[in-house]
């Protein structure tokens, strides 16, 4: 009897199997419109039976094999590639956004972690160009949180040279009579003063080091805001900056505060010298009076 079921199911699944069709057995009455209570009941049931415990749901959710490029496992891995490219090639005149994921594949590497292979398009924001990249992201599964490892190759990434502009900016910052300082980039209305834009870009590149380091399969980081960025005295031909940055994690919806000390020169790019996460409740409110 059991075998027969499997065979029939196999046949029918083979005929109907497709990511977009829904297999809808009429008998389970999954929410035919006028049955508001059927869903909560089912959810409660699954809870009791522990068949669909959250760990199991999570396990299934860690997709393996060919990935749907629009769904979140591939999207999260691709975002890590964006951060990687920004740390390696980013500058005040070169910043990356994730444009699109074309295809993705994930496989377990024994117990040590999971490896993603991705074909993506990245958007270079300042020149407004898009280009394809192949990338591999490895998320280690250790006892403590480890950074992902990324390899990426993009054919024409550095085609548009920004060396001249970077050099000019570098000289300008080096010669500053007063050290630069800015807050709230962008401000509450999304606005950035034109002469602060490049400082904002530097803050983004530096923050990408943190976003890369902190990423996992359960995070999706984006810049929220550069709360404060201050230029320090130039040291050994490197411009130095202190920066308080706010990062947004789409998964937990939290805003993470980090403090960074970083250096920049056109030759070396951005190098983070110190980084420190600030406690969660930085602007903690006083507890209310309880009478």
């Amino acid at each position, binding site marked *: 009897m*059991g075998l027969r*079921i499997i065979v029939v199911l196999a046949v029918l699944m083979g005929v109907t199997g497709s990511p977009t*069709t829904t297999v809808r057995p009429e008998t389970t009455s999954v929410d035919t419109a006028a049955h508001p209570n059927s869903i909560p009941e089912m959810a409660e049931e699954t809870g009791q039976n522990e068949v669909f415990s*959250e760990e199991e749901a999570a396990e299934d*959710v860690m997709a393996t094999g060919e990935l749907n490029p629009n769904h979140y496992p591939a999207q999260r891995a691709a975002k890590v590639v964006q951060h990687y490219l920004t740390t390696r090639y980013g500058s005040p005149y070169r910043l990356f956004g994730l444009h699109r994921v074309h295809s993705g594949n994930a496989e377990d590497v024994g117990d040590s972690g999971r490896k993603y292979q991705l074909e993506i398009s990245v958007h270079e924001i300042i020149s407004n160009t898009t280009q394809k990249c192949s990338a591999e992201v490895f998320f280690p599964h250790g006892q403590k949180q480890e950074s992902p490892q990324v390899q990426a190759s993009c054919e024409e990434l550095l085609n548009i040279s920004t060396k001249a502009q970077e050099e000019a900016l570098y000289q300008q910052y080096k010669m500053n009579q007063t050290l630069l300082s800015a807050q709230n980039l962008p401000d509450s209305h999304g606005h950035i003063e034109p002469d602060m834009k490049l400082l904002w870009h530097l803050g983004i590149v530096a923050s990408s080091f943190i976003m890369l380091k902190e990423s996992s399969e359960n995070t999706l980081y984006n810049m*929220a*805001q550069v709360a404060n960025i201050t230029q320090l005295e130039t040291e050994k031909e490197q411009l130095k900056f202190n920066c308080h940055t706010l990062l947004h994690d789409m998964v*937990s919806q939290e805003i993470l505060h980090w403090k960074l000390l970083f250096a920049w020169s056109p030759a070396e790019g951005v190098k983070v010298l110190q980084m420190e996460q600030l406690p969660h409740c930085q602007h903690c409110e006083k507890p209310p009076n309880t009478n």
Partner: protein
Amino acid sequence: MKSWLLGLFLLTNTDLYTTHSVVEGLESMQNYDYTKYHPMDEIYRWMEDVERANPELISSAVYGYTYEGRNITLLKLGLNDTAGSEKKVIWMDCGIHAREWIAPAFCQWFVKEIVNSYKTNKKLGQMLQNLDIYVTPVINVDGYIFTWANNSTRLWRKSRSLPPPDSTCYGVDLNRNFKANWGTIGVSFDSCENTYCGKSAGSEPEAQAVMDFVGTMVNQTLCFLTIHSAGQLILLPYGHPEISAPNYNELVSVGQAAAVEMKKVHGMNYTVGTSPQILCKTYIHSLKLNFNFLQPILKSYCRLLHPHLSPSDPNSGSSRDWARLIGIPFSYTFELRDKGEFGHLLPEDHIQPACEEAYVGALSIITYVHDKAFKNGAVTTVKHFTLASGFTMTIWSTIVAVFVTTGFMV
């Protein structure tokens, strides 16, 4: 000059007070800058002006109070129905999450567009005779006001309810507080976290106000739209990975049609979020097989099929899910611009293009649900959807029915 002439014209047709009021309201409306973000007191005033300026189209209602006691106000857009048949309802809310400023900006834009085009756009005028569109520009008023307080509060997300007894952290994530598989997935029970779902479903007055009000109109409601940022997504029910809506295919195709229209405006991609369901597994579980060893085999089989995951993450207790669960056939979350460059701090010069494309998307869905309900001028029931997926599905369902009723009587 224009308003003076208008005033004179109206004077000959209506009484002095109403005319003056309408003129004043119209002027305010024309001077209101829809390409800037507005603090709450300006939004409240704008709602009064817009109602005063368009008495034949707009009326307002306060349908609840926030934690801190402020009005939760909606604008009802609709024209007198000449045919006399029952009016259907479209629901749109903005600003459940305080920091998503583009959402309230869009609700205001939406109202402005309707006001400016309903007299000349015949289709829109006709729809407004059959439909009432209820628009709440800001649901989470307390949170929204808090984000305007100073630079450090701009990124607040939750409501402003007082901390629970053992905590110092304010606020509940209102979009995890609705009665829709509340507290099961994608939530936190830590009041200091941004997805804190509250102490029970509907514990928050803002969420309860929506559930109470929409609950009274559920039979007439065709469509529930809830507006958020960011990510450029159109999300369908459900956030919970184990359940799926019966009209799933239709929800997807209507969502995709909206995304296509939105892209035509400024070239922006909006991804339609299929619900993160693994329907195969749900069905297997429901079979209640006596042979427990079969379940793992069948579940592995399910894993071979492409599991449905979502561009967004699993969650429970959202307003969109609640709406679908109580029977509103079309329910969508719009996640507006952008995709991470500015995130919630979307610059004001993005407001116009973002709203233009969102308007087209919303209207596309509203037009579809309207035409479906008002085919040939006659009202058709919209509550019962049959899954139209052909011959194979019928066979599948029949066989499954047979197995369930006879196959397991062991």
